[in-house]
């Protein structure tokens, strides 16, 4: 396929919550460094579970999940998570902290010196289009939904993590803001060379952003390939999914 080494690797991974039907069945895929893998599929197909297996919020029942060539069973959760940015749909900004404190949180956990953290926070806020002078001292409730999303992205990028996990990060935004923030996000990603796993139910978003698209159906990964390959797939299950959801823009 490609000579770039995989940074995230799933090898026949199955997962089920106790006493429930399996969420993932024998899922295998590689994410090469610098790629953006978009995971699509109906709700409950297992998309978010894949993200939680990457940052070790969950461990697989069988198979292996490797991050940077190491089984997540061997990673300790805390250092692993500090190398992985995580952006959630409802952002989860800390309401009692300012924008700057939110963005500077992981550097603080990593015991950076305050001056370095301050510089980093300014850089990141500029990067996501929220000038530090105007926004650093505000609190989350003083921001619009789109601005909160940007802060969420900036926070996830704070220690320049090699991997970003994004769970419906742009879901709650109006269409114009969404287009704007996607464009910016792509720029940032290219600039930093971050590897991204993106969960979305919006196919147009997947095709607009991804270098690879994985379609999940009932816990199975039925295709995982470049967007144009997925779009041209003749697999009836893939076709059924592509045709039943919103057509491409």
């Amino acid at each position, binding site marked *: 396929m490609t000579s770039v080494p995989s940074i995230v690797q799933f090898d026949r991974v199955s997962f089920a919550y106790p006493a429930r039907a399996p969420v993932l069945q024998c899922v295998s895929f590689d994410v090469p460094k610098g790629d953006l893998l978009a995971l699509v599929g109906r709700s409950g197909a297992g998309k978010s579970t894949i993200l939680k297996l990457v940052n070790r919020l969950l461990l697989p029942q069988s198979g292996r999940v490797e991050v940077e060539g190491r089984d997540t069973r061997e990673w300790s959760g805390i250092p692993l998570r500090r190398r992985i940015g995580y952006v959630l749909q409802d952002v989860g900004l800390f309401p*009692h902290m300012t924008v700057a404190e939110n963005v500077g949180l992981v550097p603080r*956990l990593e015991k950076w010196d305050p001056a370095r953290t301050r510089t980093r926070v300014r850089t990141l806020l500029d990067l996501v289009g929220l000038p530090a002078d105007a926004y650093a001292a505000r609190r989350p409730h003083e921001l619009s939904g789109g601005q909160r999303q940007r802060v969420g992205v900036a926070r996830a990028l704070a220690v320049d993590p090699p991997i970003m996990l994004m769970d419906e990060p742009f879901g709650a935004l109006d269409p114009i803001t969404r287009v704007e923030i996607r464009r910016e996000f792509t720029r940032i990603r290219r600039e930093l060379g971050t590897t991204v796993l993106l969960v979305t139910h919006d196919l147009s978003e997947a095709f607009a952003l991804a270098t690879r698209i994985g379609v999940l159906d009932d816990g199975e990964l039925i295709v995982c390939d470049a967007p144009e390959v997925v779009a041209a797939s003749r697999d009836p299950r893939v076709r059924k999914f592509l045709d039943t959801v919103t057509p491409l823009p």
Partner: protein
Amino acid sequence: MTALLQFWSSHLGELLQLVRQHLMLVIVSTGVATAIGLPAGILAARRPVIGRPLLAIANVAQTIPSLALFGFLLPLPFIGGVGPRTALVTLTLYALLPIVRTTVAGLRSLDRAVLDAGVAMGMTASQLLLMVELPLALPSIVAGVRVAAVVGVGTATIAAAIGAGGLGEYIFRGLSMVDTTMILAGAVPAAVLALIVDGALAALEGVMRAERPRPRTLAAAGLGALVVVVALVSPAFAGRGGAVVTVGSKNFTEQIILGEIVAQAIEAEGGAVNRKLNLGGTFICDRAVRSGDIDVYVEYTGTAVTAVFHDTVPHDPVAALDLARRRYAAAGLTAGDRLGFDNTFAILVRGTDARAHGLRSIDDLSRVQTDWTPGFGYEFLQRADGYPGLVKTYGLSFAHAPRAMELSLIYKALASRQVDVIAGDATSALIDALDLVRLDDTRRYFPPYDAVPVVRTAALLQHPIISRALRRLAGAISEKDMRAMNRAVDVDHADPRLVAKRFLADH
């Protein structure tokens, strides 16, 4: 109103001292309860298996009446005893529930997404707690501390019953002297104090909800609070050292006067005295003298034999004293010589009723029992030598069940026609003042209640001045003397200290 202002201005120093003690009780107990309740609340929120029984225990502790809790704690070593310690333990127990409960509620109501974000960012459990969970739950926790402190201001008034001081001292003193002004002198500042505490903590809570205070602001506030506490507490505890003999008394006028007389007699012999007067009923005084919290108090022979030793009182006064002495000796206590008067029970009715129905003796009550409501103190209703024996001996059966009431309220209740017959003290000043008539105990139902000092034998041996002082008092106080002194305090509102001083000057 003017009487109240006059009282405050003439007792200003004492008032401030009581306010200080009161605040000290509330601040220390709320502080300790927060220090215990916060970690307990965190644990309870994390582990429902521990949390549920913990909350259940705190709930139960809350439902125990405070006086019962005081009585229960008094005999315990280390945490018990007469004075601020027992009060602090009780108040702390009461403050725990609201703090634990709001800590649990605050932690459980946090936004899941925010916590998930913290975990996913690689926070350790303790970082999540300190940086996210506690700051977000803080307003809720402060609300719990606020409830605890306000309830504490109210409950602390009861602490005076076990000698812990505070504004309850005026309330109890006022109750026992039937002095409304003095009751208000304690109750009004207590209410104002509750409002101030509530307002101050409400403001703090508001600040926290609006914006997270900077650590520096918090540190400054904490330091400020510490300074206030130290300033309040140090004078409250000052003057406790150096006392040699501790004199106690029960919570009614005669006992307070007798306590003062004993205290001043010891002082006249050159001893230093720590007064723990107004301590509650027989039970509390007995516990206190046995545990060494007080060295001496005045007891009545009949009460000692029945209520303390659960025995039958001989109707001969000398035999009764001998029995009490023997029993006390076995407990390491010494019953001294009779002070000279017998404060036996007196069955009292209104003078108007006595004249209208021609009532002269207790037997005559059978003629009016179908309409009348008796009213008795809690002790009298319970004790074998109280109400149950009385109705049996005289074959009485009142149509209405007797009403139980605080001893200090009983004379007023009779005069204001809330009850029709009461059991009072033979030496009460109010008998004449309220136009009451004492019915003759023709069947000699009531045993002798000769007043005798009860002293810890160890203290007696250690401080010979006690014996000298008590020898001076033996047989010195007649029933007439006692009634006059009670009248001076109860009716003319004289200071018990001065009444005792005048008595000793004349004898």
